[in-house]
């Protein structure tokens, strides 16, 4: 089970661009190693080299004292290296156990599939992992967090010595994250090593033993987690003292600009009412299954509601049609950038201009000059790092892609911005720029509704916080009474459960 890995002086070029220069990392047996760095720092590239996806331009991979020449994907698999990618790679139309045994199917003597045995072994693994997933279910019928857990199960189904996890907790609830961490600690005891990539500091500090920080493709520092704190770690990653951009000035006024009344949508959420004031940042939070995702869509007219109304500055908001909602002065940055925002076949410029074009009806021609002018303003505002505006948007790092998406919505010059998980999967630096932007918007008289489940983020930006639980608003907390414990108390419905017990 044991592995002793050393990657030594790894460099790699893509064309003229040097993605990694002289990076080294050591992972000992039974160690959970946190790999940190902003997006574009080279973490994924380094891991792709280890998994045999890219050959390094120079440097060595040494496993158990022996240099591995010409690492390939299948070689890595033979060596017991498993890679859990950020994007799900389970197959929707196959059952759970079929996914676990994909390409390693067990067969009976007559050549037919031994479904019984595969299902039994899968169920055994689920028990060991303490998961209540029925191995006969189709993946498409599972929610995202369960898909993610199946993905992880797939990695440890067959003997693994080193598991690379690239942000495995993005779609997991806190309880599931705990399950995963317990699992990781158990694996560690049996000598399995793990490399853990994440942007979430509390997770890293709770589960990892050692860290390696990369920045701009260079090795910055390695060490043990117990010798460093979160602030120090952030500085290592960003490479400069992070400007604290806490909600500096209160810009909230008494003027109600957005009023939601009795909004309901099937089983997802019921009787949701709240008001948003001009210049205010309102956070909406909760745990998985609280109906927030559907609510965010309903506010923007992207989901039909069964009852309820929304008023914007006193006038009814036509929530049956996205275009009308946009023209009424509401903009939305959707969650899950890749699925809901990015046009992978279009250029950076065309990605940025899409919402403005759709909002302003009438004109038949698209004016490229005007697109460039608007985008130029946004670039100045948000510090987007790009090579050329006509390059595909996919050539950018996650953080910069998200900035382009934000630019798309800022171009529409809305009064109210709904931001659904705007910092999902982006690096620390870009996160702070998003927070700065929110401050800038509200000081300009705009109002913001931010959907988030990360307390530090909510605490940093919001004036008030609406906590949802199972589709209803459970509490509205003012900034001065907002604590992580309170937020958790209401989002787990602890107050309600206590009531029913009596």
């Amino acid at each position, binding site marked *: 089970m044991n592995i002793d890995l050393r990657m030594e002086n790894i460099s790699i070029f893509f064309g003229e661009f040097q993605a990694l220069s002289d990076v080294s990392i050591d992972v000992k047996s039974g160690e959970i190693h946190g790999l940190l760095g902003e997006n574009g720092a080279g973490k994924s590239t380094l891991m792709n080299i280890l998994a045999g996806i890219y050959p390094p331009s120079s440097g060595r991979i040494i496993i158990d004292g022996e240099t591995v020449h010409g690492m390939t994907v299948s070689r890595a698999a033979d060596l017991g290296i498993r890679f859990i990618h950020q994007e799900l790679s389970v197959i929707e139309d196959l059952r759970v156990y079929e996914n676990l045994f994909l390409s390693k199917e067990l067969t009976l003597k007559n050549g037919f599939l031994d479904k019984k045995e595969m299902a039994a072994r899968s169920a055994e693994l689920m028990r060991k992992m303490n998961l209540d997933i029925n191995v006969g279910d189709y993946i498409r019928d599972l929610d995202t967090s369960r898909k993610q857990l199946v993905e992880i199960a797939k990695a440890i189904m067959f003997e693994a010595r080193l598991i690379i996890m690239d942000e495995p907790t993005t779609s997991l609830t806190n309880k599931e994250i705990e399950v995963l961490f317990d699992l990781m600690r158990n694996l560690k005891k049996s000598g399995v090593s793990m490399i853990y990539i994440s942007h979430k500091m509390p997770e890293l500090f709770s589960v990892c033993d050692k860290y390696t920080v990369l920045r701009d493709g260079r090795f910055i520092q390695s060490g043990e987690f117990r010798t460093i704190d979160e602030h120090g770690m952030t500085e290592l990653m960003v490479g400069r003292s992070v400007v604290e951009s806490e909600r500096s000035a209160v810009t909230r006024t008494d003027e109600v600009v957005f009023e939601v009344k009795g909004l309901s949508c099937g089983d997802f959420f019921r009787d949701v009412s709240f008001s948003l004031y001009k210049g205010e940042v309102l956070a909406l939070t909760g745990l998985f299954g609280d109906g927030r995702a559907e609510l965010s869509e309903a506010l923007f007219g992207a989901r039909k509601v069964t009852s309820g109304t929304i008023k914007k500055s006193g006038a009814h908001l036509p929530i049956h049609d996205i275009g009308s909602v946009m023209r009424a002065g509401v903009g939305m940055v959707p969650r899950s950038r890749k699925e809901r925002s990015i046009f992978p076949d279009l250029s950076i410029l065309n990605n940025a*201009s*899409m919402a403005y*074009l*759709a909002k302003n009806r009438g004109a038949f021609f*698209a004016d490229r000059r005007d697109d460039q002018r608007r985008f130029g303003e946004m670039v100045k505002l948000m510090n987007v790092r790009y090579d050329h505006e006509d390059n595909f948007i996919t050539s950018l790092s996650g953080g910069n892609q998200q900035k382009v998406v934000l630019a798309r919505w800022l171009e529409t010059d809305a009064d109210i911005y709904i931001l659904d998980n705007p910092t999902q999967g982006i690096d620390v630096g870009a996160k702070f720029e998003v927070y700065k932007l929110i401050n800038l918007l509200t000081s300009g008289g705009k109002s913001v509704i931010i959907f988030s489940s990360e307390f530090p983020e909510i605490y940093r930006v919001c004036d008030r916080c609406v906590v949802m639980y199972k589709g209803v608003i459970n509490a509205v907390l003012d900034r001065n009474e907002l604590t992580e414990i309170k937020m958790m108390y209401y989002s787990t419905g602890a107050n309600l459960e206590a009531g029913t017990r009596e």
Partner: protein
Amino acid sequence: MSEQIEKKPFNALEHIKYLYTNHTYIFSFILLLVIMLFINHDYLSFTSLSTLLMQSTIKGILALGMTFVIISGMIDLSIGSNIAITAGLGIVLLNRSGSITLMFVFCVAFSVFLTAVIGLFVTKGRIAPFVVTLATMSIFRSIIVQLGQGGPFNVASSILPRFRVIAAGSVMKVPNMAIAFIVLTVIMTVISTQTKFGRYIYAIGSNETASRLSGINVNRVKVEIFMLMGAMIGVTSFLFASRMTSVTAANAGMSYEMDAIAAAIIGGTSFSGGRGRILGTFFGALSLQLIENLLVAAKIPPFLTGLVKGTIILAAILLQSKKESKKA
């Protein structure tokens, strides 16, 4: 940015490289042309090139419309049947009214109507375009065969000379058909690159959810894409009737959809949507016709033309898909 570009010395090889990765279709066309020149040394003449253009026109115009349909991630399998029914009914109208203008207007309006119905089934009915047009392919064909009782629709002899000259005529030695193809190519290029509608076509093919959430009325744009396809079919039906002067209901336009798809794909349109160029399709249509002419010139047995044509199409696509995977 501009500074960097100015500093860079002019590098012809790099320019060709760029042209090759982004406009492969021009190179495949030139390659075919060179092969043709080996067989027929006099091929590079005004006459043969304008003839090539004219021969490509019918399928080429269809391919222009098909390009938009494919870029947006859809497909129309019923354009061949659509031509048969539109051209057939158009000839009936022409014979009764004697007005060529009226027939032209009818052809375009009727095809647009048919494709709009397809569009509504796709959007409001939420049925995959492949399935809808598989059904309409057989419906349109059946209607026109029934109306013609299996027989052909012939242009009345009184109008024939006036009508025939549209497809057969030329302006300053350039065939009318070729002019129509070029004009429509220019119009469609402008639509695809300069208009908001053009942007939306690419956006929908690239990511439909993101398009909807950006405020694009996806359903409306899809119906409009089909209607534009219909307009191309209408023009083609009119030219087809003028060129053939007789439309056999049972097999007119048969398998034209396949040639239109092939031309778009040889021209670099991505079958998974989001990418493609009208100019590529223009050269794709020329290449496709050039392949056919090559086979005739090289005296390849007519029964084998399908084999050679198919192989060349596969080779063209392989060339492009290889390039795509390199980029990623």
